[in-house]
């Protein structure tokens, strides 16, 4: 009987939509984050003009790419109403595993003649394996994603540290990586960073997968109502497993870019960016409750966070303040999400 009151506002809302005020329409728009980014940028431009130089912009762009890749992986998991807290540990474990293959200081794969190839396989393989482990725990053992990925994060972060201290002289990182590998993170082709092309490719594939394929539609269905999905013949467990595997794979690819940029494989890679990964997706509009999200939204979120980050750096704030302000920004995004959700409910 609740439908008595809901049918009318629902059908009436379509008629009244154009009458909504500009402010409300802006608030509801999926481009809101882009608008906020532009406003922030303009304000910063007034305070620190150097933000608008080509170098800084390229810097922002380069910094965005690995975060974008790992956040896209996170988006897959968020859409099925899961969460992958293990992402930072995937970055770290892949980084040390891959770097230990290639390092000029006695890398395991040096004798093969193609250390870079083996190294890249190691990055991707470690990502896939950790994603697979998370997925198996969630789908076969029925454990909550939060607990599974929280614990795998602790384990693999710890393992990466142990692995590094056992295998390196200084116990902190694998340096002396092949220059061809470092180029993936740093090199450019006519001014366009390689990492941009790599991240762009990941983004395109992810976007097509989510918006155009049966698998993508299944992921949204699972996020919206897993029981209805299962009864409609959706292989829920297999699809969720794949979402975690994809998240792991994206972590491995992001780790390649990060490691290339840093020129070392380090177990502390990504230690502080968990909030950035989940936060950028949520800021973009991906729902923590599942069933709602787009690759482009995640891109907007990543762009926003990266611009905010750079702006705060240019202001010369210390790390602690940057963290506080970023936390505040992500909190505001969450509040905004709640307001938008209410407006949607009102039709």
């Amino acid at each position, binding site marked *: 009987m609740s439908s*008595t009151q809901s049918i009318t*506002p629902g059908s009436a809302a379509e008629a009244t939509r154009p009458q909504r005020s500009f402010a409300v329409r802006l608030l509801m728009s999926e481009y809101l984050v882009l608008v906020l980014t532009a406003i922030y940028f303009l304000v910063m431009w007034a305070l620190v003009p150097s933000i608008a130089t080509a170098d800084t912009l390229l810097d922002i762009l380069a910094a965005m790419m690995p975060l974008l890749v790992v956040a896209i992986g996170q988006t897959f998991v968020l859409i099925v109403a899961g969460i992958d807290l293990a992402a930072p540990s995937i970055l770290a474990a892949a980084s040390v595993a891959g770097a230990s293959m290639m390092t000029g200081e006695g890398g395991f794969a040096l004798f093969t003649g193609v250390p870079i190839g083996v190294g890249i396989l190691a990055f991707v393989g470690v990502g896939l394996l950790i994603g697979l482990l998370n997925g198996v725990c969630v789908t076969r053992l029925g454990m909550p994603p939060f607990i599974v990925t929280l614990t795998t994060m602790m384990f693999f972060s710890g393992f990466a540290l142990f692995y590094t201290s056992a295998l390196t002289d200084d116990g902190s990182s694998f340096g002396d990586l092949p220059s061809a590998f470092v180029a993936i993170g740093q090199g450019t082709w006519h001014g366009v960073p390689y990492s941009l092309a790599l991240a762009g490719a990941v983004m395109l594939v992810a976007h097509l997968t989510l918006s155009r394929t*049966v698998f993508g539609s299944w992921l949204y269905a699972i996020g919206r109502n897993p029981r209805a999905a299962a009864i409609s013949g959706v292989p829920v467990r297999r699809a969720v497993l794949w979402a975690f595997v994809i998240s792991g794979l994206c972590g491995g690819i992001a780790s390649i870019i990060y490691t290339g940029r840093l020129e070392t494989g380090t177990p502390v890679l990504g230690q502080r960016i968990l909030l950035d990964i989940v936060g950028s997706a949520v800021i973009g509009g991906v729902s923590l409750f599942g069933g709602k999200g787009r690759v482009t939204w995640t891109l907007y979120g990543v762009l926003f966070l990266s611009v905010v980050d750079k702006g705060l750096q240019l202001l010369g704030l210390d790390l602690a303040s940057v963290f506080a302000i970023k936390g505040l920004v992500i909190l505001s995004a969450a509040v905004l999400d709640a307001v938008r959700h209410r407006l949607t409910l009102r039709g």
Partner: protein
Amino acid sequence: MTAAPFFEASGLCKSFFGVQVLHGMGFTLRPGQVLGLVGENGSGKSTTMNILGGVLPMDAGRMTLDGADYHPRGPREAEARGIAFIHQELNLFRNLSVAENLFITGFPKRIKGLPFIDRGRVAARTQELLKAVDLDIAPNTPVSRLSQGERQLVEIAKALGANARIMIFDEPTTSLTTRETDRLFDIIGRLQRQGIAIIYISHILGDVMRLCDDIVVLRDGHKVGQAARADMTIEKMITLMVGRTIDQMFPPREPPVTLGAPVLEVRGLNQRGMVKDIGFTLRAGEVLGISGLMGAGRSELARILFGMDPHESGDIRIGGTQVRELSPAACMDHGMAFLTEDRRAEGLMMEASIADNIALASLPKFGRSWAGFIERTRLGDEVQRISGAVRINARDIQRTLVKNLSGGNQQKAVIGKWLLHEPRVFILDEPTRGIDVGAKYEVYKIINQLAADGAGVLFISSEIEELTGMCDRIMVMAQGEIRAEFPRAGFDREAILRAAMWHGMKETA
């Protein structure tokens, strides 16, 4: 006992986004009166009650309580003035105990002003209230352990605890067994004798006739009729509700002269505590009804057949092939479809569009190449065709969210989802529950069409009239077994009911 009215509403109007949904609704209530409120979904019943309960403000009109103006600013004020809402979807905290639920809005304190709950007084008062509704359970029983019927009684006890003078029941019997319903009606009679006024909303017109002193009929936000029970009949109510005469509740159905091949054969199906030695054959073109009381194992059987729950032994053939590993996907591959009894939790994605919902079960059919790219134009056309075939009433099926549809249209979306899958065996579990008369008629027509097109339909329902009106054959289940089977020529409401109740009665005797 015709006391003077103590509550009066007149000229109630309400609009949502410029669309008027209530036009000058009015009624009065005497102490101890049971007022029936009937009308199709969307006719304004819930809006009226939400105004009364302080959930929605009215645009125009007047309500008086004991001669004084009554304009509640919110549900709390309505509650304080003695108006209680027994919701269709019960509003209890399942993880809390009965006593905690009763006092959630105000626990008695040990010392005034300090946050220490007087557990002793809570328990004593809870016991008192539970006794008033004949519920023999301990105050600290968790609500999650109670049956639907018992939970409803707890809600009534809660209303009694708040000294309610008007109690609103919105479809209170949809999830109750026959016995629980009888118990509820006893309690309502008792409340009535205590001078509490009852507003009773239901689609089950027989109950309304049995229970209510006066009946108000709504259509499209207008009050189209009001009469005392003596001057009202079910036919009259239906005519008023739909604004036209439905000569028959059910569309005419030509029973197939010769049935087709078996599409579903079940032999020796067992699952401890659920179903016992089930065997039957469903043929192409046949509508086979399953009757029985709640808990007789009907839904459990359906869930096993669709591979959602396990079974210990048994042989199941769909379309002639034995299916060993039952799962929804495997059953669907063999052409089976299943409309569950809980369309909100299991049938629909409420936050998704009508089109997305209809497409859900058939996506792989529209996948192209190894990557499974969806042929969007073809899918869109097919979804549009299905939506037209089941007559979903919405402007834009790509954009309208299912949660904004009426119950009837939601159910049509679930049916549409399965029609797109082109089932040869369609299991329907309470397909007309909670939908209005007009939508029911349309669902019946779709079922007839399915059977005429050669599908076998397994029709589970608690309404015997519905089964006798729609089926070629009816099986009666009780305690997990098939107890009786009636061919269309031998349909007998009483015999069916007796078969369903027989065992239960023997046990309690």
